[in-house]
């Protein structure tokens, strides 16, 4: 369509279409740039361990599940996988439970201190958050939370909470207040109006921010490695075994780490810009 608009005269059609081919070529190259490495680690994960360490390598998988089996049966992996999932679910629950009410308050009320709260939330972005794990390690030992899943989930929640607040804030802002007012006139209390009118409309967005919190926790390496010993998550396990783990284990682990990323992006693609676009204001 832009071609049609830009070329009222037929003579101009040729250079434009050359530019178009150029654009298409760049788009394809950049798609390959993103996808090819993911394909290659999948090839490794779906090949037998001997093929993974062999030379030279083939560029397509043999669909041998030896590497995956080796990975799953490796001492500590199954437990680490389970820990990763549990910590991520705890993080998701905490981030939504604490973040959604705050997002609602920011979107619906004018009150003193609103700007200071927003500043506090935005400030968390200017700090290297994984470093929080250092002082918290001391606090956790004192309170008996050291090496616990909930302790790690609390640290991961500081990473995910600012986003949960900002996403739900923009989400509630996009739902007209008039709908709630209509419910009030029909005799609903604020809580009823929220439950029956706002929540159904907000649910997909809240779910997306939950998925985001899950992946934030799932992917986090530094705090997990510092804070857990017995209850290692998958990232902590893989990081600490880098020195001695055989290649097939690393690559199967890497591939398993990547899978949620693909699911995650598919689930939140509609909300991608309210996830990060808010940073514009």
């Amino acid at each position: 369509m832009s071609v049609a608009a830009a070329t009222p005269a037929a003579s101009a059609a040729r250079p434009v279409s050359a530019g178009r081919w150029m654009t298409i070529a760049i788009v394809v190259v950049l798609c390959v740039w993103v996808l090819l490495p993911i394909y290659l680690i999948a090839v490794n994960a779906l090949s037998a361990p001997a093929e993974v360490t062999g030379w030279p390598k083939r560029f397509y998988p043999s669909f041998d599940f030896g590497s995956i089996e080796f990975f799953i049966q490796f001492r500590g992996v199954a437990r680490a996988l389970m820990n990763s999932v549990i910590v991520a679910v705890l993080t998701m629950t905490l981030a939504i439970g604490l973040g959604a009410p705050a997002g609602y308050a920011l979107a619906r009320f004018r009150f003193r201190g609103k700007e200071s709260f927003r500043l506090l939330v935005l400030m968390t972005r200017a700090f290297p958050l994984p470093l929080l794990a250092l002082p918290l390690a001391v606090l956790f030992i004192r309170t008996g939370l050291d090496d616990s899943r909930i302790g790690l989930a609390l640290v991961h929640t500081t990473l995910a909470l600012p986003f949960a607040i900002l996403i739900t804030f923009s989400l509630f802002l996009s739902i007209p207040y008039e709908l709630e007012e209509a419910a009030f006139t029909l005799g609903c209390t604020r809580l009823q109006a929220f439950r029956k009118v706002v929540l159904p409309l907000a649910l997909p967005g809240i779910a997306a921010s939950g998925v985001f919190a899950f992946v934030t926790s799932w992917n986090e390496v530094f705090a997990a490695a510092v804070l857990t010993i017995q209850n290692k998550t998958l990232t902590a396990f893989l990081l600490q075994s880098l020195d001695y783990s055989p290649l097939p284990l690393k690559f199967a682990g890497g591939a398993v780490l990547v899978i949620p990323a693909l699911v995650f992006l598919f689930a939140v693609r509609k909300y991608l810009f309210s996830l990060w676009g808010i940073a514009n204001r």
Partner: protein
Amino acid sequence: MESRRLPYLLLLPATLFLVVFFVYPFVQVAFQAFTKGGGFTLDNFHEMVSDWKFTTALRNTLLLAVVIVPLQLALALTMASIVTRLKAGRDVVLYIWTIPLGISDLAAGLVWLAIFERNGFFNSLLANLGLMSEPTIWLGYQNKITLFAVVVMAELWRSTAIVLVVLVAGMGLIPKEYYEAAEVFGAGPWKRFIKVTLPLLKPSIQTALILRTILAFEVFAVVAALAGTNMPILMGEVYEWQFALQDRKVAAAYALVILAISIGFTLFFLFTLRTRDEARA
């Protein structure tokens, strides 16, 4: 009356959480770094600086950030200008290009390890093309330059998507009329990009640069997976002192260095990319 107190009640849990798990730990980490045996001291910093790895780690971290962030900005600007102009397939292309958003730094490191390890895909490709008979070692301590280049590539691959999303969101805010006007006055695509897109995109570029630079100083697992101990970086040293050497005080001193650099660069970008009022759309 109800709605007077309600917003504060809704904000209370999130605020308390951030005070306990964000504000308090940062005070605590400063406290840890500046004390020893109960009194104020700079000993921890002395110990940090006198370690031979400190200078190397600081240099490597800064060098990585200085190389990666500008490349990333250029790449993301290219991607964003292309994707905003796409008519067909925009959503698919954007989905593919933002996949790395959900990939952890550890997974990214393992993905690129699969490509550049001794028996990896890159060497295999060269062998298949007849360019190589014996595998070359790209990631060893003898090959500091290729090691650095691979880390840069992995970081470009993994973390350009954040910049892309922020820029695409920003470009969406630029009114189409500006481009039409520029076109009427005979500005070509390049000139439109320089004279319209870039100035109006400044707030987004600022946000993206701050976000990415802070994250660049936190680089950790990518380097750990690709280089092991062959390439000291600040975050790796924090981990080393905290976990392997069990010296929390020196780790805290390192943490403060990272914090100081992060805040310094944030202020630098806030100052140099100030938005004057007339530049706002």
